């Protein structure tokens, strides 16, 4: 069935909205950090790469 959703808050288009807002859109600074379930997640560059901030900090520590 083909149907246009005219209102982006419509339930059917909610996953499209979340996908766009969290995974697309321009990135001003190099990284974007958000918290999900109390864990900081880091987006790198323009493609979505998720890693916990804790892991990133550990890796940064190892490289020093």
């Amino acid at each position: 069935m083909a149907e246009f959703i005219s209102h982006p808050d419509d339930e059917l288009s909610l996953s499209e909205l979340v996908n766009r807002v969290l995974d697309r859109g321009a990135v001003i600074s190099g990284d974007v950090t958000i918290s999900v379930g109390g864990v900081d997640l880091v987006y790198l560059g323009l493609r979505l790469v998720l890693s916990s901030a804790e892991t990133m900090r550990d890796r940064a520590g190892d490289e020093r």
Partner: protein
Amino acid sequence: VHLLAYCIVPAGHPLPPGIKGVSGAPVTSLRVDEDIDVWVSPSERRPTAGVEAARAHHRVVAAAMDTVTTPVPLRFGQFFPDDVAAVAAVRRESRRWLELLRRFAGHAEYGARVDLPDVSTGSQLDEPARDVHQQAPRSGSAYMAALAQRHAASAQARAERERLARSLAADGLVADARQTAVQGTGAISFAHLVAWKHADAYRAFMQKVGEADQGSFEAHFTGPWPPYSFVE
């Protein structure tokens, strides 16, 4: 005060009065340079992702959109220590933002998610998932036959995707298009950048495509959206 950023707009683009962002924080416009502003709201901590926060972010970006001006939508979660840092970060790429604003002006994004029941349901569209109950081929010739069958299915899936992409972008109604496989499903996600002046014709055309192909795939169309998929 820390800031959360939403979108980049042409300098002086009017902010709707009383507009609220994530956590109900008031949105304000910061002047970056003579050409562009950035819309921000105060935030005490890094934002927490969730449906409500995503909706709030989107509401602000969508509020910047009209038939003449289209903002550059920012990804959720851009957090700055203060307004000086936010303005400096935006200004570093001001030429890029200005180019995008010019390209997006008078356009909106539309989405089409197409589920293809007859092709792959695996994460790789070119690698149709094998039925787990199906027995593994017991001989060399059976193996070769199974391999040939998989190649044929892959070719069929590719041909179907290409045909869809062609039909969905037809008639010169689409200024730009993106196509991605939806991971873990057999679905394809299309994003189309469409001029407002073509919006009615585009919607009518897509409705027709969806109805004509009813049965061979299931399509859901969404929009208009700010051009989240076209910022690269």
